[in-house]
């Protein structure tokens, strides 16, 4: 396979083309990436982080129709589906593109970018975007070196990537999946001062080596992709007392819709039903977050039901989890798994928690939980050992009786998927 250099640029190089990129410890720039010719339309399965960045830059310059993912996220059925939809499915590695062509090729849609939603249930869906609808940070930003821990082609990955592509001074340090557990070392070595990750990502980092995290000179910490609770915000604040800590609500369907910088979980009640031109409008219908966003995916104009459940508590609108899994019916009383999770995560000895409903006699379901305990603090007396009974009592002091998890299993490590989520 030869790697051809395109002679016909359809767009100027993006504004961030000279930003620094560190991939696998090697310093590059967007401009120094190889410039393979990509099929059009193409579903590119990037072999590594550098190949994903290469495809993104090629799209920015040439505007070819692109769906970007990794081989591990596209199974045989999805591959067939993409070929049937007229995509050339192409593995991109150091030797260039290795295409499988569709039986019935079709004309490309210029400028179109496709995302595969991670979809915790059912088949992943294709959501149409453009580089423009994926670019949600437009105001000038202070110069930053961002960590990109996300899987290539996901909405969160595109958020960090478009920021660096479109804004001078926004550099990227990309970690490959096998470097993920050791990212603070990589980040400290390359001067990362801004990082974005899921709460699970941050919890794992704190759990594995909080001291290593503290050595990363972070000035901006961003959380998103999963419900964000007060405990994780507080724990990060303790490590980074002066950094800006933000959480963001974003999805491939409605784009980045909520950004909160005040260090608190949830957003102010006053933000509901507020209409500002060019900004998303947030509302609640039947406990469900509804977003009308200018950054929506193709065909998703107007109010979009997000499938995320909200609960108003103390003047804040908390996003507690997915509608189909957050509500647990215990003998007719409704319990929010997210609220219970927040209480458990607030226990000083708990590093991570998952709360679910479990089938039970008489009541239909019961609240149960899994937790990972924080590494033992040598200064704590042995009597302070946290066990199931202690956690049940902690919850019983803070929750209605039917919401108290009665069975709490202790896991030894925080589970995480390629999306950096853990289905809490």
């Amino acid at each position, binding site marked *: 396979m030869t790697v051809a250099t395109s002679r016909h640029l359809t767009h100027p190089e993006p504004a961030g083309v000279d930003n620094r990129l560190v991939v696998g410890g090697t310093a590059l720039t967007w401009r120094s990436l190889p410039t393979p010719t990509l099929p059009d339309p193409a579903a590119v399965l990037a072999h590594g982080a550098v190949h994903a960045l290469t495809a993104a830059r090629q799209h920015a310059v040439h505007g070819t129709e692109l769906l970007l993912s990794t081989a591990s996220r596209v199974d045989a059925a999805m591959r067939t589906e993409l070929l049937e939809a007229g995509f050339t499915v192409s593995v991109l590695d150091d030797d260039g593109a290795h295409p499988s062509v569709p039986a019935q090729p079709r004309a490309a849609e210029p400028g179109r970018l496709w995302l595969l939603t991670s979809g915790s249930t059912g088949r992943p869906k294709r959501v149409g975007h453009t580089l423009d609808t994926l670019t949600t940070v437009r105001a000038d930003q202070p110069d930053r070196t961002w960590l990109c821990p996300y899987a290539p082609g996901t909405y969160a990955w595109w958020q960090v990537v478009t920021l660096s592509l479109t804004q001078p001074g926004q550099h990227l340090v990309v970690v490959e999946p096998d470097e993920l557990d050791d990212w603070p070392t990589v980040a400290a070595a390359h001067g990362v001062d801004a990082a974005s990750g899921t709460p699970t990502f941050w919890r794992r980092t704190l759990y594995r080596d909080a001291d290593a995290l503290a050595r990363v000179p972070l000035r901006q910490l961003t959380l998103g992709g999963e419900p964000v609770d007060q405990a994780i915000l507080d724990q990060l604040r303790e490590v980074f007392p002066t950094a800006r800590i933000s959480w963001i609500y974003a999805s491939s369907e409605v784009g980045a819709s909520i950004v909160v910088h005040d260090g608190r979980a949830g957003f102010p009640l006053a933000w509901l039903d507020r209409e500002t031109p060019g900004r998303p409008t947030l509302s609640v219908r039947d406990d469900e977050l509804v977003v009308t966003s200018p950054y929506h995916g193709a065909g998703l104009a107007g109010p979009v039901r997000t499938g995320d459940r909200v609960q108003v508590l103390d003047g804040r609108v908390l996003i507690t989890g997915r509608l189909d899994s957050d509500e647990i019916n215990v003998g007719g009383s409704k319990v929010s798994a997210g609220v219970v999770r927040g209480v458990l995560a607030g226990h000083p000895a708990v590093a991570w928690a998952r709360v679910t409903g479990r089938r039970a006699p008489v009541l239909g379901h*019961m609240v149960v939980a899994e937790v990972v305990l924080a590494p033992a603090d040598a200064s704590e007396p042995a009597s302070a050992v946290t066990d199931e009974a202690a956690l049940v009592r902690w919850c019983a002091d803070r929750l209605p009786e039917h919401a108290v998890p009665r069975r709490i299993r202790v896991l030894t490590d925080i589970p995480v998927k390629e999306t950096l989520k853990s289905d809490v």
Partner: protein
Amino acid sequence: MNELSRTQIRDLMAQVLKNQDKELPADDAAQLREIGFRSLDFSELALRVEDETGEELNFDAPGLRRIATVGDVLDFLVELQHQ
């Protein structure tokens, strides 16, 4: 199949109550209402039996019945394991 004896279930029941600083009387005829063993506690006990045996109980199988005493709880859970 991994099955718990009536005595083992009784021990688990005592544990459920002990976690709430309550005591399980030795008398099987003791009224659940008097010892403060309620439906949440009953459900917890059933889950503990499942966790001990590694088998799911079939809660739908037996018909409705009156569960008023400690003995009723133990009989019911012993029986459920056979469903």
